[in-house]
């Protein structure tokens, strides 16, 4: 036992190696016909003679299915050979935000953008699309954060130069020191906020956030529809109808209203408000 902490990447790699070795052993055992369910080529069960033909057919079928599966997997995941790098991308949280899920992005993209079927996989595609948009948002967030980190680093650099400037007045209190920092950091951040790079990063983040939210709504609405619950889109339509009706009512009232002025002053209670408008009973607030 060493003092070195357990490395999860090594462990994951080892697990993957063992799994691969076992699969290979299984296939070797089956194709060699030396035994059934043998691990590492060692037969554990002797097959009865009358079962040999059936087993051979099953083996051929299994091999053919495996070939088809490999071919399909290659189509679905054209760039997704399981390598150490791709495993790392899958399991290393630090890579998730800036890089998305690498090969899986491509897989999701492929599934989302493939042909649609009338009733097949509709909800799944919505969920996959939400996943894709969420990944894009995470990338945009990471790009935004990189710019912000750069700005903070620049502010620190400028601060160090400023406090070591022999020409500057002495700083004799923590508050003076804080004020110098605030001034420098504020100016640096404001400068950054006005750069085309920052504005574009902020624009992309705002946009991808909106797209994520809209896609999540689509999923929520799919479930609402299954349960006969009104969706946000339906509510928007209803509210639009109400809004349009109110507008029409106001226009009709305006057309029918008597000339507005001049009028003699009158008490609040004596006058009839237009329909839709409410003349408030005098209520004091303070």
């Amino acid at each position, binding site marked *: 036992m060493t003092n070195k902490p357990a490395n999860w990447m090594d462990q994951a790699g080892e697990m993957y190696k063992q799994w691969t070795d076992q699969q290979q052993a299984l296939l070797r055992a089956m194709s060699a016909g030396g035994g059934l369910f043998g691990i590492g080529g060692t037969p554990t069960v002797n097959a009865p003679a009358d079962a040999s033909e059936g087993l051979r057919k099953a083996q051929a079928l299994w091999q053919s299915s495996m070939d088809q599966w490999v071919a399909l997997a290659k189509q679905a995941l054209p760039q997704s050979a399981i390598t150490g790098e791709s495993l790392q991308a899958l399991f290393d949280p630090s890579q998730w935000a800036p890089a998305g899920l690498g090969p899986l992005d491509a897989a999701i993209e492929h599934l989302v953008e493939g042909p649609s079927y009338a009733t097949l996989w509709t909800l799944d595609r919505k969920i996959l699309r939400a996943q894709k948009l969420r990944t894009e948002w995470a990338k945009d967030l990471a790009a935004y954060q990189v710019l912000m980190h750069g700005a903070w680093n620049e502010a620190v650099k400028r601060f160090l130069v*400023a*406090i*070591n*400037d*022999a020409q*500057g007045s*002495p*700083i*004799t*209190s*923590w508050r003076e*020191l*804080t004020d110098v920092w*605030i001034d420098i950091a*504020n100016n640096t*951040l*404001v*400068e950054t*906020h*006005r750069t085309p790079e920052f*504005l*574009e990063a*902020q*624009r992309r983040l*705002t*946009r991808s956030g*909106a*797209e994520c*939210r*809209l896609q999540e*709504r689509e999923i929520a609405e799919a479930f609402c529809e299954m349960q006969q619950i009104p969706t946000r889109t339906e*509510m*928007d339509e209803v*509210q*639009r109808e*109400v*809004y*349009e009706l*109110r*507008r029409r009512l*106001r226009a009709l009232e305006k057309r029918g209203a008597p000339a*507005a*002025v*001049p*009028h003699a*002053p*009158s008490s*609040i209670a004596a*006058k009839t*408000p237009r329909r*839709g*408008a*409410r*003349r*408030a009973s*005098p*209520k*004091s*607030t*303070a």
Partner: protein
Amino acid sequence: MKSRIQFDPLEMAKQFTDFNQRLQHGSELLRSVKDRDVQIATTPKTEVFRQDKTTLYHYEPMADKTVATPMLVVYGLVGRYTMADLQEDRSLIRNLLLQGVDLYAVDWGNPGRGDRWLTIDDYVDGYLNECIEFICHEHGIDSINVLGICEGGVFALCHAALHPERVKNLIVTITPVDFHADQAEGRTDHGFINLWTRSLNAEDVDRLIEANGNLPGELMSFVFSTMTPLSSLTKYNLGLLDVVDDEKKLMNFLRMEKWLADRPHHPGEAAKQWLKDLYQQNKLVKNQFELGGRKVELANITMPVLNVYAKEDHIIPPQCSRALAECVGTDDYSEIGLAGGHVGVFVSGKSQGVLGKGIVDWLTERP
């Protein structure tokens, strides 16, 4: 390299002791303050008219009337009208009442998701127009004085251009007219909202509104905070520390926080017009802005106009406001440039009296 930092250990110890004492006093004070103690918009008023979420208030007089024509204060949808009446000694409303103005204010309420279809047309030609009609009816007059603030100033300008017969005198404060004039100033600390909105494309705005229904108040708060990033980050530590041991200053701080926290959502369709037609395409100053199928021609503003701007306004840079001079159709155009920033013009101790008095003096010359 020689450092500028020259801390005297004894002085540092004293500062540390002082810091601790302030912190202790402040924390006791903060513990004793409840939300109900932090009241804003307390000037007595009466609700006199309501339509949907719009409420019209009439303020109780505080002095003999010196201006015969009543005045309506119109705030925008980006914040709440309560900024004009933050506290007793920092209140434009109170200052105007104390100088004998008969005052009304319109409160747009808190727009929700169901209000997403409301347009600026609904606010200008609908609610605002109804309020003005109501006041005209109430007083038996043809026209009233209108005072618009920020986006409310744009509403007031649009209304005055579409219904000039209803506005006797028009006062706009910290109001954008040329939304691209920030570029002429060349200041890096001014006009970030102008820059931010121009960085979006029309589809970005549409999708943002589609996703949220409205322009979320929280998003606008975030954009405002990026204009002064460090003061936003330090106000709850350093800023609070500066005022925490002084009850009066602490309450001022908390009232301002209460107003800032009360940022409503901007109805979606109106937000699209605000961001796309005005901020991005600058249609108002070009006389291309349309409401209800009618073009808003600023040259139709023929009544006397007073334009109040803030010289250090980082939200609405002065040049964006002052562009109005070239657009209106009146020769009776005046400006007051006040020291201070966007909100400071209304709530700073220095501006109290100056703004209210400037407005009343201008009005009394135009009875």
